[in-house]
């Protein structure tokens, strides 16, 4: 008996000892001594805080507050100058000359044009194999295409040049109407050659670095928390009130909701969808609006199943090569009914094109411009039925199609609504729900008849959505239409913003209405919770947040 108790006490002592040797750093949201602290819960582990690579949403929440580029988005997605003081564009739209604001790094050293040159070349050297986002440079800047992963000394042809300390000149390979929007991307941010080595990112997590943003890293622990402190050397530090930001890594949405209600966090950035109902009308509910994301059905319109990722062989289905069948499928979708079933209130809206709300068009919002003319596709059950019956389908001769999606309540609900709605037009939909990565493989390989798709945007231009179906950008060529390709190609080279937007509207109409290569469903946003009385959080339609001008109650 004694032995049993001995063992038990050994266990207890061991546990207590282990508890003692744990991290004893001071606890988070203790806002003692009048210090102004904002505690933010983020929904996943941040990656390295290297502007060249860390481009997922969660990492961006941090990087955007410690580094600054020439431009950043305003609430509706227009690029507004940050480090750029003024700029000129040559008449042919190729040469951009920027004057850089007087500003210093957090260690007092002047931010120069040479830092921008190094930042861009370093991103290129890192290469698209490591960071897909370097293609946002190599696809646009003159001489950058061949510089992907090249050593620095071979980059003399890359046309990003420091004319003097405060003047930067960038020459493009071809005119690009949304180039300022690209400059908000972190691959274009300035970096110091003396601190940021090539092809390596872990340096970026250290606290003793020169920062260009409103805050500096105080500690970085990606599995639990990242702490930022105010950067007193920042160009607009006088208007920054926050002393400290604590980012808590909380992957579980339910946990964030409860910790918010418990008062442990001020800003919960990832909470369950139904929070929009429980917090309806309360001041805490925070929704980024517009938030750019679309949800649509992608159709394998060519039957191509030869994509290179994954091993499952697909079976080409010729039926969907018929544009009339595709049109019938699109006509049969009742978006209002879908929204009712999803029951997410004002988080979601019916989408009638591939480009969601929040992308600037010629004068206002691209989507609103298009919808003001007409919905590219609308619910018309009778027309859909007529098409199907003319093709010989009926209650006794159902068309069998597969719909692929990944397993989550949201996606599964959408799939079931589509299944029910398409049954009305004699389509027997086989829903194949798999785990996320398996689904990605199948979709990029072309191994589907119909599949769900949802995309946010990196740069705020309709092109980001429209060039998805430019055939060279597809792994399996599920859309392979020379007419569409030439429309996109032509839009790429157009400079006049109004004419270019007209061309993009035409391309979208061709994609969605005329050829029905995709069926748009909804656009949506995500709920967040912010302690009542806190103001001044800057947001962008890409979901970015800027805490520089936050005011606590």
């Amino acid at each position, binding site marked *: 008996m004694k032995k049993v108790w001995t063992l038990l006490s050994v266990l207890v002592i061991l546990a207590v000892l282990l508890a003692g040797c744990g991290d004893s750093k001071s606890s988070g949201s203790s806002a003692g001594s009048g210090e102004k602290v904002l505690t933010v819960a983020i929904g996943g582990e941040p990656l390295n805080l290297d502007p060249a690579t860390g481009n997922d949403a969660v990492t961006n929440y941090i990087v955007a507050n410690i580094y600054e580029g020439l431009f950043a988005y305003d609430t509706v997605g227009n690029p507004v100058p940050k480090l750029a003081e003024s700029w000129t564009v040559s008449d042919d739209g190729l040469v951009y000359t920027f004057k850089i604001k007087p500003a210093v790094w957090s260690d007092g050293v002047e931010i120069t044009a040479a830092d921008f040159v190094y930042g861009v070349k370093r991103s290129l050297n890192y290469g698209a194999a490591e960071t897909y986002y370097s293609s946002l440079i190599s696809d646009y800047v003159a001489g950058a295409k061949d510089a992907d992963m090249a050593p620095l000394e071979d980059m003399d042809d890359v046309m990003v040049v420091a004319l003097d300390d405060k003047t930067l000149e960038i020459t493009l390979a071809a005119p690009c109407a949304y180039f300022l929007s690209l400059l908000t991307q972190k691959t274009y941010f300035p970096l110091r050659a003396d601190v940021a080595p090539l092809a390596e990112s872990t340096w970026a997590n250290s606290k003793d670095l020169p920062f260009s943003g409103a805050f500096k890293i105080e500690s970085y622990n990606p599995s639990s928390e990242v702490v930022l402190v105010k950067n007193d050397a920042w160009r607009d530090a006088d208007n920054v009130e926050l002393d400290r930001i604590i980012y808590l890594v909380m992957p579980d949405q339910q946990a964030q909701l409860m910790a918010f209600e*418990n008062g442990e966090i001020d800003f919960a950035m990832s909470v369950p969808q139904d929070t929009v109902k429980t917090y309806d009308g309360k001041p805490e509910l925070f929704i980024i609006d517009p938030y750019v994301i679309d949800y649509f059905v992608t159709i394998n319109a060519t039957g191509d199943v030869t994509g290179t990722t994954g091993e499952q062989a697909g079976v080409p289905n010729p039926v969907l090569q018929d544009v009339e069948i595709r049109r019938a499928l699109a006509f049969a979708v009742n978006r209002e009914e879908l929204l009712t079933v999803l029951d997410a209130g004002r988080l979601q809206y019916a989408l009638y094109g591939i480009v969601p709300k929040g992308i600037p068009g010629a004068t206002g919002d691209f989507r609103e411009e298009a919808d003001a003319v007409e919905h590219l596709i609308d619910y018309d059950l009778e027309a859909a039925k007529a098409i199907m019956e003319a093709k010989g389908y009926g209650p006794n001769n159902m068309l069998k199609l597969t719909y692929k999606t990944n397993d989550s309540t949201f996606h599964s609900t959408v799939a079931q609504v589509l299944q029910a709605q398409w049954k009305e037009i004699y389509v027997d939909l086989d829903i194949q729900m798999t785990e996320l990565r398996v689904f990605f493989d199948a979709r990029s390989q072309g191994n589907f008849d119909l599949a769900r798709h949802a995309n946010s945007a990196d740069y705020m231009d309709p092109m980001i959505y429209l060039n998805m179906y430019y055939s060279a950008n597809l792994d399996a060529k599920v859309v392979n239409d020379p007419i569409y390709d030439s429309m996109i190609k032509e839009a790429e080279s157009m400079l006049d913003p109004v004419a270019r937007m007209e061309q993009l509207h035409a391309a979208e109409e061709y994609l969605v209405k005329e050829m029905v290569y995709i069926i748009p469903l909804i656009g949506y946003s995500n709920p967040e919770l912010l302690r009542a009385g806190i103001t001044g959080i800057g947001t962008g339609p890409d979901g970015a947040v800027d805490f520089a001008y936050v005011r606590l109650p």
Partner: protein
Amino acid sequence: MIRYIIKRVLIGVLTLFILTTVTFFLMKSIPGNPFTSERFKDPAILAAMNEKYGLDKPVFEQYIIYLKNVVKLDFGEMYSRKGFYVKDVLLEAAPVTIRLGLMAGAFALTVGITLGIVAALSKKKWINNLVMVLATLGVSVPSFLLALMLMIVFGVKFKIFPLIGLKTPLHYVLPVLALSFYPISYTSRLTRSSMIEVLKKDYITLARSKGLSWVSTVVKHGLKNALLPVVTYAGPMIAFLMTGSFVIENLFTIPGIGSKMVSAIGNRDYSMIMGLTIFLGILIISATLISDLVVAFVDPRVKFKK
């Protein structure tokens, strides 16, 4: 004794090897790729990434390369987090989970055994019933539900305990409770039934008839025998607690290995999956070995075969 331990360690190494091999090939056989994402990537970029990480090589060749590295204790770089090494992540996350698991284990055994004894000895029916109801609840209520209830009641409603992480001793209370509820119930049932069984034995009657007091009969002869099955159960139970619970770690935002495993599989982070598998393998194999040795230490009837 020494020879027995050496033999067990050798078997353990063999088991680990088989575990590594099977996991490696199973993992490679699931469809999915660490580099695919929601956005369509340029096919050329995908190919370049596969080449850089050696994923274009035949699976068997990848396996040999991996084994060579593991022998050198090099578990490689994470696929989903560039610049982070599996070994560092494990060394950071494992102590958190192990510490929590040991605490929950110790708490479960203390409370479970006490409740079991009280139930077995109590003459009052309601005490017995109460313990049994608790025990039945404990084995049937899933831990995520219990954790959520604890969080709502003690975190959100009464604001007694904090809900994020394990910064202070106070932070440990709710996760330890949530983790240990099931083992408490199981241990108390086990103790109770085993105790009742033992008290019916002839040697108890003999001890009583020889004039030994009730208390010392129960403590010296009853408990000692009644706890043997509990000790056998305790080893695997603690090993299980130390491997971490995804649900509890996620809800209480604890950066342990339970939550790492789930995200590693979801991301197809091959090096992390392998590192975790090998690590958990070592943990469970050694916990089982220790628990076998402990049983032999407590129960003189167990002898090591020469």
